[in-house]
């Protein structure tokens, strides 16, 4: 049963998944909002490990952005 389910996903025949993945694409827009709205993070406090907010906030977006992209990837059909 496990094997079957795996194959099913790989071949991308799951219609539910396809409709869900089109919404998933919107996740890719979040980093643009988080990073291009500069006034939101242009401040020194609160600091983290000595880093002013401006710096650790932007550095934090590196893993967040990768995670969001991975979530979209996970929901895709990998045809190629």
């Amino acid at each position, binding site marked *: 049963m496990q094997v079957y389910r795996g194959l099913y996903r790989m071949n991308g025949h799951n219609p539910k998944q396809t409709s869900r993945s089109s919404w998933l*694409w919107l996740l*890719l*827009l979040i*980093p*643009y909002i988080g*990073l*291009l*709205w*500069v*006034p939101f993070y*242009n*401040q*020194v406090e609160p*600091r983290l*490990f*000595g*880093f*002013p907010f*401006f*710096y650790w906030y*932007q*550095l934090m*977006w*590196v*893993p967040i*952005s*990768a995670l*969001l*992209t*991975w979530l*979209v*990837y996970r929901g*895709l059909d*990998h*045809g*190629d």
Partner: protein
Amino acid sequence: MATEMDYVPLAVCVFFFALVTIMGFVAARWRVPETLASIDEWGLGGRQFGTWITWFLVGGDFYTAYTVIAVPALVYAVGAYGFFALPYTIIVYPFVFAVMPILWKVAAERGYATSADVVHGTYNYRPLELAVAVTGVIATMPYIALQLIGMAAVIKALGLTGEIPLIVAFVILALYTYSSGLRAPALIAFVKDIMIYIVVIAAVVIIPAKLGGYGAIFDAADAAFKAKGSGGITLAPAQFFPYASLALGSALAAFMYPHTLTGIFASRSGDTIRKNAILLPAYTLLLGLIALLGYMGIAAGLKVASNNDIVPALFKSQFPNWFAGFAYAAIGIGALVPAAVMSIGAANLFTRNFWKAYVNPQIDHAGEAQVAKITSLVVKVGALLVILFLPTQFALDLQLLGGLWIMQTLPALIFGLFFNWFRAPALLAGWAAGFLIGTWMAWTDGLKPLHTLAFGSTSVTLYVGLIALAINIIVAALVNLVVPAPRVAPRPAE
């Protein structure tokens, strides 16, 4: 900075340079094909690079030696504003994830090796293909020259004088690129990236420990900017739009360059590219930490004649001399990988979209490879001559314009992948408008990246490349609406 001779770092550098030189020549036998005599093999490494090779290659190619030198230099000089490289190299990846696998698929299915190949295949309109190809080549030339500036900073730090070391390094690079093609930088990228990771991880641990921690480093930088009366560790409100538009514009331009696209086309699959869009941000984390070297330079009380000397000066003052040598070697090799890929990307464009299109349409695969190999030599010699005989500022100014120019190829290259409303003549008009008006704006602003637009009493300052792209798209849309469609829709080539 002091330039007395110290042989330990020099020996370390020479050792690593010799190592990668051997690797560069041996690379011709790596995953050996029947023959290297085709663009697919010489110029794209056989289109077989999997996730890890692509990760090292694109990482080594996109985060260049010049980045390691120039980003901290800008942060050292002006503070937070120089940090725009961080949001830039974060938001570039969702774009890569969404767009580049589609571009790869079109290219792989139809055998395209360059951006201009894709444009020709989509629109079957030679003038647009030529515009894209010429833009690619002229935007890449100053970028190669910049890698030489990065290398020159390291050579200077080693205490070597004269131009002979730079020329020798570049001639060797040219020779193994000629013989091994894209396999050479792909293999060398492994060494380069691992060395850079070691250097940066050591730097961000050791140097703050010596300087009293990150809190103290930021405080020292803050105090220095306040004393100087300009710059700061946060942005001035007037810098918000410049900061955000530089990040967005740079992200849109980054994967239009021939060298980054070469990394994309050389991938094995669309999935390879998607995985890399998730994994490549590891380099961005590294870049964020590299940028902070600028503040460490301030906290260490370093004063340099040229801002670009701050990273070598910091390594020299904070590291034991053998490790400083290792760090210089990492930066120097970091210049070789992108310079090689850039010259290959430019050579592929020239061969496919100029030589084959206009000089010898009957050229076979082996002939294409030969033309590309010779072009890669010419391109490198050209960049070397620019650095030797023209002021450094010339290359920097051209690089700025290069970013603006390459961005103007985005509508022609990308829009057709998603919808076919735009026709080729309209895209060509848009390209010309963006290119010319953008260049004119940058020129009249004294070759600054920012341009101020006034709407009545309010004004907004933005990255000039992004303004040019907006003009490009608007003009393309208007021309498309005004000029009637031809009765027979142009069919794709082949």
